[in-house]
Every structure is written in structure tokens, then in C-alpha cells.
């Protein structure tokens, strides 16, 4: 092979990180897409769901193709498709075209990720080390995704998230092209000849359930921060960075515990505990999301690595079984999003109604002068009307504040009370979905209990 192993390993790791970051990189851009494309919460969810659904469906067939036509060619073509579809995503001005481009992007991504697992052992010398690099690259990508996505959304635009992927994917494809050329000239690289065994049912099932819970955590928390508590994408990116930081700590913690089942069980419990904490937030305070995020971050690194390790151990070829783990994880994300989104959208509609009623009561009972109250009520009503069913921002309705110090103080008290009612509504709207996510994490303990690792 003509390409030096080190640039090739870096390119493969970059490809895996880039693709697996793609499901989380877009999370912080969803509220912006939601507003700009004038869609609904359910509609914007499909920007995430479509990618994960197609990844789940395409991962194993992509691994089979990689073994048939050659992993180098599959990875190179996959990255080219990923880049082209990324460009289409960035140029989309409608939800339908964006979702379609995301589907194509996932096909390319599935090919690149599974073929990479097939290519890595030849470059690093062992399947175990290849699997470790592959899993680490994916975890790093998924961990960095939200922060990068939030940064790009705020500083440039949501479109830039996709457009920046184009040169990165093409750059990653360059060292892999050498392998593809080599395959074209000499035929397919010698690959693992062991028969493809059955996928590890329990480990993959547990992966799906835990991934559903984690997707719920990330997606719902970002929506709560941006749509409910009105944080900027950059602010939300900063807040949710707690999770990947805790995940790094979790992976170090995992090194001290050899039992994969023990790590998986502890991880699932921590993810559930963190989600339950988010479900019982006692106040709309960003700081209160930190302890639950730490538990989720610690838990996700423990459980995902332990279950992936269990699903791959003793099974060959790695690409096919890696494909099954990708499939299980992304299917879990889809299940989590599809199951929880309708519940939380119905809840947010009800809570918005209750919050507006409670806010109206606050205005009616406020101790501001009647004439000022009427004026404020009219300004608030027009703001609510303008927000078209979304959680309203009430601040501007109180500007300018009255010049009279007494009135000013009364209006400030009223604004605080009104904001409190809206915060209560927005926060409570997410509670049930977080708690259901926690339940999913706990249910995953059953397949974890049944999963056993096979040593090679």
C-alpha cells in the first residue's frame, strides 16, 4: 500500500469522528433551523431522526459492501457522498430537502465508518487496538459535536455546520484514496476469513436502549436550554460540554474496572440517575443541570464502551459487528427521539397554556396601577401572539420601564413573577420525557444482566 500508516490512521479516525459527530453536531442548531425554516418541533426532529434512521439501516449492508468491493474504495466513496450531501444540507432552504440530504449523508457516513473499522487493523496491527481507536474516535466526535455545532451556529450560521464538513471529509478521503487505488490495481485486501457469527443480541439491545436514553438527554436538554430558558447556542454549547468532560473522566474510571458488565450496569444506572435529576429540576437554573450532566457523562462513557467491547469481543469480522453496534446505537437514538418527541411536544403545549394562564393571573393580581397594567397586558398579548405557540420571551414587553420609581419597582416585581411562571412551565414540560428516558436506561439493565463477553 502506498499511503503511510500514520496519516491513514489519522484520516480514518477523522472520518469516524466526523461522521459520528454529525448526529450530535446538529443538536444545538435545531432551534435555529426550527425558527429559520418555520417548522414544528416534530418536524425539526427529523433532521436528527433521518440521519440516525438511515445510519441504523445502512451500517450492516455498508459493512458487507466494504468486504465485497474493498474497504478502501467503500470508505473513499462513502466520504465523497458524505461531503456532497453535506454541501446539499448547507444549501437547503426547506426542511424536506434538508432531511433528504441528511439521509444521503447517512448512507455515505455508514459506508465510511464501517469500512474504516475494516481498514484500521491493517494499519495499527491488531483488531483490538483498531476497535479501541475506532470507538475512541467516535466518542471524541460525538463529545465535541455539540460544542462545535453551537459555536458555528452562533458565530456563522446553522448552514456552516454542514458546509465545514465538506473540506474535512474530502481531506480525510485523500490518504484513503491510496488504499482504494491499490485495491483497484490488485484486488481486495486480504480480510478476515472467519465466518460471520450472529451479532451479540443482548449487548446490542442494551446499546439501543441506552442510546435512546442518551439521545433524549442531549436533545431535550439542548431544547430546554435554548427554547425553554432562552440561552444562546454558544451558551447552551458551553453548558452541555459538561457531559463530554465528564465522559473523559468516566473513560479513565472505566480503566480500573475490568468487568464489562459491571461498567455497563453502573453506566446505565448513572445515565438514568442523571436523567431523573433533569426530570426533577427544582428551579430553572443552568447550574442545576451540571450534577445530572456529570452523572450522564460518566455513565455514557462507561456503558457505551463496555457494551461495544462486549458486542465486538470474540466476533469476526469486526466491520460487520461494528456495523451492528452502529446500527443498534442509531436505532436507539431514533426510538428515543420518536417515542419522546410527541410526549414532550404535547407537554410543552399544555405547559405553555398553564404558564400563560398563571402569568395572566400574575398580571391581573399585580399591584401596578390599572392603566399601566392595561398597557402591559396589551404589549404582552401582542408578544404572545407573535411567538406563535413557542415559549414566549416577555422581557421586551416591559421596555421601556416606567420613569416613576414606585411604578418601576412594581413592574420589575411583576416581570420577575411572570418570568418565573413561564420558566416553571418550560421546565416542567420536559420533565416527563426526561423521566421516561431514565426509565429506558433502567430497562437496559435487563439485557446488560444477560450479556456476557466472549474472550478471543
Amino acid at each position: 500500500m502506498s499511503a503511510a500508516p500514520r496519516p491513514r490512521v489519522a484520516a480514518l479516525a477523522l472520518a469516524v469522528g466526523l461522521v459520528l459527530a454529525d448526529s450530535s453536531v446538529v443538536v444545538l442548531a435545531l432551534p435555529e433551523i426550527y425558527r429559520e425554516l418555520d417548522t414544528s418541533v416534530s418536524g425539526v426532529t427529523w433532521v436528527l431522526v433521518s440521519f440516525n434512521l438511515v445510519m441504523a439501516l445502512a451500517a450492516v449492508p455498508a459493512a458487507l459492501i466494504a468486504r465485497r468491493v474493498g474497504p478502501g474504495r467503500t470508505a473513499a466513496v462513502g466520504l465523497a457522498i458524505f461531503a456532497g450531501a453535506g454541501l446539499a444540507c448547507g444549501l437547503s432552504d426547506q426542511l424536506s430537502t434538508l432531511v433528504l440530504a441528511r439521509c444521503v449523508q447517512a448512507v455515505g457516513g455508514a459506508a465510511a465508518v464501517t469500512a474504516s473499522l475494516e481498514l484500521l487493523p491493517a494499519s495499527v496491527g491488531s483488531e483490538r487496538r483498531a476497535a479501541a481507536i475506532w470507538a475512541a474516535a467516535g466518542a471524541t466526535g460525538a463529545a465535541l459535536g455539540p460544542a462545535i455545532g453551537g459555536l458555528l451556529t452562533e458565530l456563522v450560521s446553522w448552514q456552516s455546520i454542514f458546509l465545514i464538513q465538506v473540506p474535512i471529509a474530502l481531506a480525510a478521503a485523500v490518504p484513503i484514496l491510496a488504499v482504494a487505488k491499490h485495491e483497484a490495481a490488485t484486488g481486495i485486501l486480504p480480510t478476515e476469513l472467519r465466518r460471520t457469527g450472529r451479532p451479540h443480541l443482548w449487548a446490542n439491545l442494551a446499546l439501543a436502549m441506552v442510546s435512546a436514553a442518551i439521545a433524549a438527554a442531549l436533545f431535550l436538554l439542548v431544547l430546554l436550554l435554548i427554547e425553554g430558558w432562552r440561552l444562546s447556542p454558544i451558551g447552551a454549547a458551553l453548558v452541555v460540554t459538561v457531559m463530554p468532560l465528564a465522559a473523559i473522566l468516566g473513560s479513565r474510571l472505566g480503566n480500573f474496572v475490568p468487568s464489562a458488565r459491571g461498567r455497563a450496569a453502573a453506566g446505565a444506572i448513572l445515565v438514568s440517575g442523571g436523567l431523573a435529576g433533569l426530570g426533577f429540576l427544582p428551579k430553572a437554573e443552568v447550574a442545576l443541570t451540571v450534577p445530572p450532566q456529570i452523572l450522564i457523562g460518566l455513565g455514557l462513557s462507561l456503558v457505551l464502551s463496555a457494551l461495544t467491547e462486549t458486542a465486538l469481543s470474540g466476533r469476526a469480522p469486526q466491520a460487520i459487528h461494528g456495523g451492528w453496534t452502529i446500527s443498534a446505537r442509531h436505532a436507539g437514538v431514533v426510538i428515543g427521539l420518536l417515542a419522546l418527541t410527541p410526549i414532550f411536544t404535547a407537554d410543552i403545549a399544555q405547559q405553555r397554556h398553564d404558564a400563560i394562564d398563571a402569568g395572566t393571573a400574575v398580571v391581573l393580581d399585580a399591584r401596578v396601577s390599572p392603566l399601566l397594567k392595561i398597557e402591559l397586558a396589551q404589549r404582552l398579548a401582542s408578544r404572545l401572539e407573535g411567538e406563535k405557540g413557542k415559549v414566549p420571551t416577555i422581557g421586551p414587553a416591559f421596555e421601556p420601564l416606567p420613569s416613576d420609581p414606585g411604578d418601576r419597582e412594581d413592574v420589575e416585581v411583576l416581570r420577575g413573577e411572570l418570568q418565573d411562571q413561564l420558566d416553571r412551565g418550560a421546565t416542567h414540560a420536559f420533565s416527563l420525557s426526561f423521566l421516561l428516558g431514565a426509565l429506558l436506561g433502567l430497562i437496559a439493565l435487563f439485557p446488560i444482566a444477560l450479556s456476557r463477553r466472549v474472550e478471543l
Partner: protein
Amino acid sequence: MSEPSAARGRRRAQILVVSAIVASLALVGVYLAAGGSSYTPEKTQDPCQHRPWRDPEGLDEIAEQFSLSALDGAACKLGVSRETLVQALATPEARERFGDRYGIDEAELARAIRAGLLRAISDAEEAGALSPLLAAPLRGTIKDIPLDQAIELIQNARSLLDTAQSFLGPAEGLLETLLP
């Protein structure tokens, strides 16, 4: 794995699982104790229950209390909250949406609002904010008024009180004398 290191591995796994359970329960316990299960929007009050009037300081304050009582009375009659009714009366579009949602036609709404205004007069009398001398002509005024006018009276009860004054003649300051 040798026997002692296998046992050590099992013990570490047990410690990790127990720590995870303890940390999760501690977090949930602390959040629940801090009010995590009751952090919801406050429930609105039953409009059929009487709300005591605040001490009125002037005609505008009386007019405000009068409007709130009228809203309570009308909302009670319609079986909705006072707050829902306020939002419905904000614009003609909101009124239409309210009618569609609750199956209430204009005639029913008009009857309810008139009933609300009558309750407000009684509440004002009971609170000592309105003299019986004024209450009688006010009741007469609102008995058959059309819906739009009834809504306007709720939104601007001061005009109703001014109208009552005209029943008593043009004597300047009489209303202020009759109202505490």
C-alpha cells in the same frame, strides 16, 4: 486472570455499581427535597369562589376590582378560568378561537358577561366600594347591553361608573362623594 485479581475485579465492579446507585439516589433525593416535583406553573383560582376586594384607593382602583369581579362572574358562568376569559377578550380573533374551542356562541358569551357585571356590582356593594344608590342604575344599565359594549365595560369599568354618575345628574363630584 488469576484468582485474586479476578476477585479484585469483581469487588471493583461491585463498588462502581453501588457508587452509581448512591450517587443517582442522592441527586434525585436532593432535587425532590428542593421542590423538584412541584416546580410547575401555579394553578389558577376557581372563579366561582369569592375573592375579597383590596382596599380601594381611588376610582381607578375600584374600577379595576370591579373588572376583576366581573371577569370572575362571567368565567364562573362559562366554566372557564378568569385568565382564559381575559385572553379570549383581548382581540376579536382570540374571542373567535375561544368560542370554537369551548363551543360558546356570542349570545351565551353576552349573557355570561352581563351576569359577571351584575356580580361585580354586588361584590362592590358588599365591599363597601359602591353605594346602593349607584348600584340600582348600574344594574339597569347593563341588563340588556350588547356583547361588544359589555366587553368594553369589563375592560374599562371606569366608563361604567362615569355612566352611573350621569344617571344621578350633572352634579360635579357627586360620584367621588358616593364612592369611598
